[in-house]
């Protein structure tokens, strides 16, 4: 058994002058205070990576900088799936007895710490260095290739995709920490600057500065009782050229594993936190997992199904698309928001019932999948 005993999240957007370590420290400080723990209580540390601070040993750098003395520490790298992969590992570490309190932390000044071109080029390196990157491919282009095929097979329209961007923006407006607070319409998404067809600017998550952290504990450390009930992963390929399919990925298998470990049915889920690097990412994940029928994610968003007061509230902080995306911390914001919802601390965003939550993240080009089921007893 493991408990998600505390969470911390900075605002996302511009944090000029703040480094990777500054943003990691800010989030870690908040998470420890939230868990009612001191630095000396942390015996396990898991870190992600930072593209603006590429270090061979980020976890030990953070140990020294933040002032920890853990008996277990290292970094984890599976792209966008890193945050949830660290939650899964922390769960197994405390479950096995290897650690009592695992601090998981990520942060990056991805927006102000480098040029826009540098960010685009660094991220494009998840593509194949010999067979894909020389073609001038980018992360949006890899996902756009998937989008073209998925839309061809399932009849999804660009307006359907846009509905998910509109939904995430609607949610972000109610969160003071979100990068974007101006409402957008489907027409604005459709008219936004072309990036890689069919994806336009507003189909893509922004680049952000930010930090996120959480603590996974063997025993409760405060009044919160949010438990990690089940975890799962699936890894099918790295490069989109080598993906077994552009319409079926590892998401379903990953969620099935987490669901079976937790002993729950999909219909039991009351709150969903799903990775949304692009509108097509969210569309495919929702539909493959089974939270919307094929071709129906956009319609469900339009009909209010995923609203705060809808049948299945989704990414109520605004997701990567509108809260922002700072790298490993991006999906961890989904987890922080889930915890706030499950502990009744989501203020104006509070949903009625978040007692059982499903979280799912992907890294690469729908390459690495990690799923979590969280529950309150």
């Amino acid at each position, binding site marked *: 058994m493991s408990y998600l005993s505390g969470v911390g999240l900075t605002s996302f957007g511009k944090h000029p002058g703040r480094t990777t370590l500054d943003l990691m420290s800010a989030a870690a400080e908040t998470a420890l205070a939230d868990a009612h723990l001191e630095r000396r209580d942390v015996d396990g540390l898991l870190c992600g990576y930072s593209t603006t601070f590429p270090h061979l040993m980020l976890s030990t750098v953070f140990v020294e900088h933040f002032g920890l003395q853990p008996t277990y520490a290292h970094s984890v790298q599976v792209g966008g799936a890193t945050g949830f992969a660290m939650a899964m590992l922390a769960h197994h570490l405390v479950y096995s007895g290897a650690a009592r309190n695992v601090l998981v932390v990520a942060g990056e000044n991805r927006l102000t710490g480098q040029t826009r*071109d540098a960010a*685009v*080029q660094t991220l*494009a390196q998840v593509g*194949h260095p*010999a*067979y*894909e990157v*020389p*073609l*001038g*491919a*980018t992360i*949006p*282009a890899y996902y*756009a*290739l*998937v*989008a*073209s*095929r998925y839309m*061809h097979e399932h009849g999804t329209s660009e307006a359907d995709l846009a509905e998910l961007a509109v939904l995430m923006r609607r949610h972000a407006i109610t969160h003071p920490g979100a990068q974007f607070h101006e409402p957008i319409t489907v027409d604005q998404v459709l008219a936004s*600057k*072309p*990036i*890689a*067809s*069919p*994806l336009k600017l507003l189909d893509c998550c922004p680049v952000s500065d930010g930090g996120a952290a959480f603590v996974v504990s063997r025993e409760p450390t405060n009044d919160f009782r949010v438990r990690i009930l089940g975890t799962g992963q699936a890894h099918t390929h790295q*490069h*989109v*050229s*080598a993906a077994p399919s*552009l319409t079926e990925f590892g998401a379903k298998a990953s969620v099935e594993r987490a669901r079976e470990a937790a002993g729950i049915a999909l219909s039991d889920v009351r709150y969903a936190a799903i990775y949304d690097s692009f509108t097509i990412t969210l569309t495919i994940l929702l539909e493959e997992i089974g939270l919307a029928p094929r071709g129906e994610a956009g319609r469900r968003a339009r009909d209010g199904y995923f609203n705060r007061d809808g049948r299945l509230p989704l990414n109520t902080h605004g997701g990567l698309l509108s809260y922002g995306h700072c790298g490993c911390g991006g999906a961890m914001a989904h987890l922080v928001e889930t915890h706030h919802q499950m502990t009744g601390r989501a203020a104006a965003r509070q949903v009625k019932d978040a007692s059982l939550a499903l979280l799912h993240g992907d890294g690469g080009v729908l390459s690495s999948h990690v799923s979590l089921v969280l529950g309150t007893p």
Partner: protein
Amino acid sequence: MSETTSVLDWTAGAEGIAYQSCPACSNVWYFRRSFCPLCGSAPPDDRQASGLGGVHAVTLVARAPSDELRSYAPYLIVLIDADEGFRLMAHGNPSLKIGDRVRAGFTMLAGKLIPSFEKVEA
């Protein structure tokens, strides 16, 4: 295999698309390596693709990743299902659509040779 030297490969600067196949299990794949990723047998056969295939996915890239590539944008990136049974990424004529029959040609992009596909009548 002695074929190795005779197979033209655009990633090595020669006008051709190379792929590999496994003599043991008949698996075919694109990214070069020294063993079969399905059954582990080694060495694989190096083969020359015909350059014929069908368009599986397309995107018109408007936002290029660098100054060097900006002057080429917008450019069409495609995933092609080669007749030999493997999939590859390449450039293509901006008019290409999913399902089109295509044939490979070669062009220069920012100083590097790359494959670029044109439509052929089915």
